[in-house]
């Protein structure tokens, strides 16, 4: 975190940048949207051909790619829309219902 906003609720008005400027690019990564999910995408590695369609069609940049290969999902941010599973030509992504911690 280049711009520390963890205690922002305690800031005085003059501690906020003028014009409510946001001082760190891309800092929404610190904000998690994974709890929106009711279904989680599960990647079935042996079926995957690494075509990367799931990567280019994800609205939340939540498909991780490392060295041209799929490296799983960013579950801290994935909202569970299921576009990746719909678009995968190999059925290599399965949408599985999330469970309550207590049900596991």
């Amino acid at each position: 975190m280049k711009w520390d906003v963890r205690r922002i609720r305690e800031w005085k008005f003059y501690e906020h940048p003028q014009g409510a400027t946001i001082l760190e690019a891309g800092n929404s990564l610190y904000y998690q949207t994974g709890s929106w999910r009711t279904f989680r995408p599960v990647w079935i590695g042996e079926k995957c051909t690494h075509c990367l369609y799931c990567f280019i069609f994800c609205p939340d940049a939540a498909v991780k790619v490392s060295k041209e290969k799929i490296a799983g999902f960013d579950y801290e941010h994935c909202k569970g829309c299921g576009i990746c599973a719909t678009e995968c030509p190999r059925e290599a992504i399965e949408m599985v219902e999330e469970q309550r911690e207590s049900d596991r």
Partner: protein
Amino acid sequence: MASLKELSKRKEGLVAGHRLCAGCGEGIAVRQVLLAAPRPLVCAVATGCLEVSTTVYPYTSWNCSLIHTAFENAAATISGVEAAFEALKARRKIGEDFHFIAFGGDGATYDIGLQALSGALERRHRFLYVCLDNGAYMNTGIQRSGATPLGAWTTTTPVGKKEPGKLEWRKNLTAIAAAHDGTYVAQTTISHWKDLTQKVEKALSYNGPSFINILAPCPRGWRTKESQTVRIARLAVETCYWPLFEVENGKWQINFQPREKKPIEEWLKLQGRFKHLFKEENRPVIEKIQNYIDTEWEKLLALSSL
């Protein structure tokens, strides 16, 4: 032209943690645009879903400089930024070569921001304007816009005994932009990522104004399943509701010709906003839409053969 492998190695322009709805077409569109765009970059966004969901203070999902503008003036704002850049460059106060993109929804672009856009195109600023067309004012609760298709339900074109949704045709904004001579103009959508990213590359290497209209399905307002966003965009192309084309130096070119034009019903039936059209008494509306699409497609074929 960049392959998916190459795109996957680039820095994300729109990172995770934004609060667009699950499955929102705008998120897909903007990611693809920014992955294709050269850096450094300055963007301006008109008020709408994209702007309010990606810049919730103190967080931003933008990995570049971004100006939050009002609803109606993204094109004017980016014109000013480009003009300031040119002035600084002339005085040798800035070295790097910047690129400029303005984003607006269809409400912001077809309607309230049309004069700002037209002015900026006519003044020939070097910038790209991207319209994210989801066919209504989504952020304020799905009100009709100049982009809403005939027959669609919105909260201001209700469905009842007297009216089967919107009564008017949508306006052809891409053609309006093309009427500004010397503008690079294109229409594309998220299912065709190669077409989309190529057009962005072309637009940003052009020494003048450019405009790209991107169909960006909205699960919330179209009453569709989140998982179907890209599929619905693809069907819009395959039914010729949303042809992929570009206009360069006055020459119109179709970029995708479906081998067989699918009937528009296939696209309509996936969307709750058109559900009422499948009642017996509204069948003529579907026919009317099909005829309209056929006529528009013939016009486009004729224009592209000039």
